[in-house]
């Protein structure tokens, strides 16, 4: 039963990847829609970022002094100026670890 659900979930997921590329031609979307689609990365990724920072494993909001908020701010500043993905991730993680292992321990 679980196997069957995984296969159905897989087909469904594949459909979400394939539908707009294989079944819909670009002309079917007007110029206005194309202009709005420019914003897709900015409109999608914060929905992954915000909950991962502001909501804990138990589904409630974190405190204002949560180490993850601090780590995210460091990552944003470093990322903005360095334009370097590795530097962004590492400084975010290191500042987060510094807080949980050194300051708050």
């Amino acid at each position, binding site marked *: *039963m*679980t*196997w069957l*659900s*995984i*296969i*159905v*979930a*897989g087909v*469904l*997921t*594949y459909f*979400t*990847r*394939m539908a*707009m*590329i*294989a079944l*819909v*031609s*670009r002309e079917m*979307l007007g110029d206005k*829609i194309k*202009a*709005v*689609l420019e*914003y*897709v*990365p*900015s*409109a*999608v*990724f*914060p*929905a*992954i*970022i*915000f*909950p991962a920072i*502001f*909501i804990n494993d138990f*589904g409630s*909001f974190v405190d204002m002094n949560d180490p*993850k908020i601090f*780590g*995210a701010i460091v*990552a*944003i500043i470093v*990322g*903005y100026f360095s*334009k370097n*993905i*590795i530097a*962004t*991730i*590492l400084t*975010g*993680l290191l500042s987060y*670890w510094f807080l*949980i292992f050194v300051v708050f321990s």
Partner: protein
Amino acid sequence: MLTKKQLFTRGIFDISPHMLSVFPFGIICGAIGVELGFNPYLVYAMSFIIFGGASQIVFLQLISGGASSLVAVASVGIINSRHLLYGAVLSEYLEKLSFIKRLLISYVIVDQSFAESNKFFKKNNTEQHLHYHLIGTGCTLWVCWQISTLSGIILGSFVPEELGLKFAIPLTFIAIVVQDLKKIDHVIVMITCGLSSLLFFDAPFKSYIIISPVIALFVASLILRLKK
């Protein structure tokens, strides 16, 4: 004009930094499946059949928590529905490909491969074989995902939980959008999406992941109207 091989290699190069977060996440994902008591073959098969990190974890947690298969499948579908938006953006660059090629390339479209290849496509839209960049980013991520979930399944969670490596996931996406903070319209769209995701976090089937982008894109369309 870049060759197919150069584009493919460039794709691998562009997505590699994100493996810093994909790898630990894959290990966590594989280890969770086994810890929840699922058949290891089943946990691994998900990486191949579904190939979508967050949705795989949600699926396993729901089933082990006693939810019906229907609820679990619906949640996976809703969490992954954001790919429809990625496809709509990428279709412009892939429409010259044959139907079969479009079917094949669709399988490797994930968050990071979309983000990095879309950035590359926008800057180099005169290149002829652009899709090789997407094959490079997508296949690199696919291989890493298979290896990392498999290691999590076999070795268990050998990354200590205290390290909180799940935090690498939001960091990877911060790295993707951070340069757009220079543009005020993008900042407004990002804040709209982020706040909506917190507001609708408890909506059924994890639907905040698609509700917030829809709201944010609506705000984007209002911004475009004001700009004119």
